[in-house]
């Protein structure tokens, strides 16, 4: 019987532990659900790097060199992914990356099932700019995700004739959001893009709630905080109700009413209790393990070269809809959903059908019409 020894490399502790725990739980739930159902044996080898680059590298090395893994599902941040890629390449293994990220990467040794900007940020702004206005404030975590997402957002906004009224990043884990909130209060944007994660993001959403209480201009109906990385798994930590009305883009929400999702939620309720919400991190990780298992089953081996080739012809049903990898980019085709926070859930406001990933954004710049032609002055010298 074919054996798939699968490295599971997520930070379940540390600053973004909630995300890592959902990714890990999604993968482990899939392995449980597949036991006895599919004709291969999946042996998980789990490690928790706790958000440390050195630990990520050491654990990945151990999984590939000592534990005999040829596939690793893992890393949450882009920093960690970039740290691990050289070891993956060296062993000609495959890394299955399940989190939304900032794009501009298409490594032959990575299968990307998280969304990239043409699947999250662009459709989000195509909705937000006409609906809420074109004066935007940008915040983010002080590393490549925050920097690049803000940069892309700035390009989209400027191209649409809008204005970035402020931009500020915080180191991961920093909760000193006072200065950002004061700037937001003074500059009165139409909406705010937050690319912060973990404690910074939670502190910011709490502070925006306070600001909205003092001045109704900053309530979510008037000046929402939008993001591409906030999911159900962080809402209890923020405080249920605190972030109500704020918006997020994702390729999955727990509230999605499909047969595949009802089945997944039933399994999750049995395993974790009926209070547990499923986030896009959980669902994507779950779907990715199922996809990997399907490819290994078809090939009769876990040889990464054969798996990568076989993926072109594999499409699996999943809670995110039918999941397929585009062989040109190694990225998943994914739907876009816009959700509004309500208690521990997201109410789905808008959905778009599955889109092919365009990691280098070559297909189209933006579809938001500029407000007016910019007058151009020339200085004659």
């Amino acid at each position, binding site marked *: 019987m074919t054996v798939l020894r699968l490295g599971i490399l997520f930070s379940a502790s540390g600053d973004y532990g909630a995300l890592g725990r959902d990714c890990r739980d999604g993968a482990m739930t899939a392995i449980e659900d597949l036991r006895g159902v599919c004709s291969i044996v999946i042996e998980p080898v789990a490690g928790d790097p706790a958000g440390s680059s050195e630990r990520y590298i050491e654990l990945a090395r151990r999984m590939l060199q000592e534990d005999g893994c040829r596939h690793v599902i893992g890393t949450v941040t882009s920093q960690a992914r970039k740290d691990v890629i050289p070891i993956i390449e060296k062993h000609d293994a495959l890394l299955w990356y399940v989190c939304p990220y900032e794009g501009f990467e298409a490594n032959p040794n990575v299968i990307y099932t998280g969304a990239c900007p043409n699947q999250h940020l662009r459709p989000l702004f195509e909705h937000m700019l006409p609906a809420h206005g074109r004066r935007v404030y940008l915040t983010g975590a002080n590393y490549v995700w925050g920097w690049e997402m803000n940069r892309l957002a700035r390009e989209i906004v400027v191209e649409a004739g809008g204005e970035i009224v402020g931009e500020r990043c915080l180191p991961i884990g920093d909760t000193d959001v006072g200065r950002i909130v004061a700037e937001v209060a003074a500059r009165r944007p139409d909406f705010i893009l937050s690319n912060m994660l973990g404690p910074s993001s939670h502190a910011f959403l709490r502070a925006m709630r306070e600001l909205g209480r003092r001045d109704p201009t900053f309530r979510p109906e008037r000046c929402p905080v939008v993001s591409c990385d906030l999911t159900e798994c962080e809402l209890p930590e923020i405080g249920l109700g605190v972030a109500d009305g704020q918006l997020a883009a994702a390729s999955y929400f727990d509230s999605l009413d499909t047969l595949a999702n009802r089945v997944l939620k039933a399994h999750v309720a049995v395993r974790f209790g009926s209070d547990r919400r499923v986030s896009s991190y959980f669902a994507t990780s779950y779907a990715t393990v199922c996809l990997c298992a399907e490819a290994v089953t078809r090939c009769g081996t876990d040889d990464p070269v054969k798996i990568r080739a076989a993926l072109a012809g594999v499409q699996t049903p999943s809670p995110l809809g039918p999941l397929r990898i585009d062989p040109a980019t190694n990225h998943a085709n994914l739907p876009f959903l816009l959700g509004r926070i309500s208690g521990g859930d997201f109410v789905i406001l808008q959905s778009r059908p599955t889109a092919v990933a365009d990691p280098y954004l*070559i297909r189209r710049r933006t579809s938001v019409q500029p407000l007016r032609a910019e007058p151009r002055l020339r200085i*004659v010298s």
Partner: protein
Amino acid sequence: MKATLSFLGRRAVIVHRPSDTTDRLLRQCALLGLRAEARWQPLSAVEGVDIVLVDADEGWDGLLPWAPSEKPVPLVALLASEAPGRIAWALDQGADALIAKPVTASAVYPAFVMATRRHAEARQLSERIARLEERVRLRALVHAAVRTFMVTDGCGEEEAYGRLRREAMQTRLTLEQTAASILASPRRQAG
């Protein structure tokens, strides 16, 4: 902030023996929206080509159809060797960026962006130097025109220079062109 560069629709030529290196480069080019071809023959012209990649390990003089100072397109050197002679060859061709072999996927887009920017900057710089050289060459005319105004208007050097500048602004010509036309005008000369 400079806009994120898009290479959609642009054309690349990879001057390198067909190999794993060219396979990897062709894959990344396709992802970036470039039409690319690999060839291992001297390049005769670069019409319609937007970027050239060249094997600096095995390249020879005459492989590329330009003198280094006249390089018409961004150039990326592909290099596995550390030999000083090969690095010098790449520099002599006018390489704007380097991709180390074996090629990793993540090395391609940064090198293309860097080569494109460097090439554009070098072009702007040489155009600027040419303009400045021309102005230095014609500086004697400006002096002569100022002296003419000082005589005809009976004013000081500063005022005469100010008048020359105003005329240049009004006629939308450079100082040098204005000075030349003043000196060429018999009416002016006569006062």
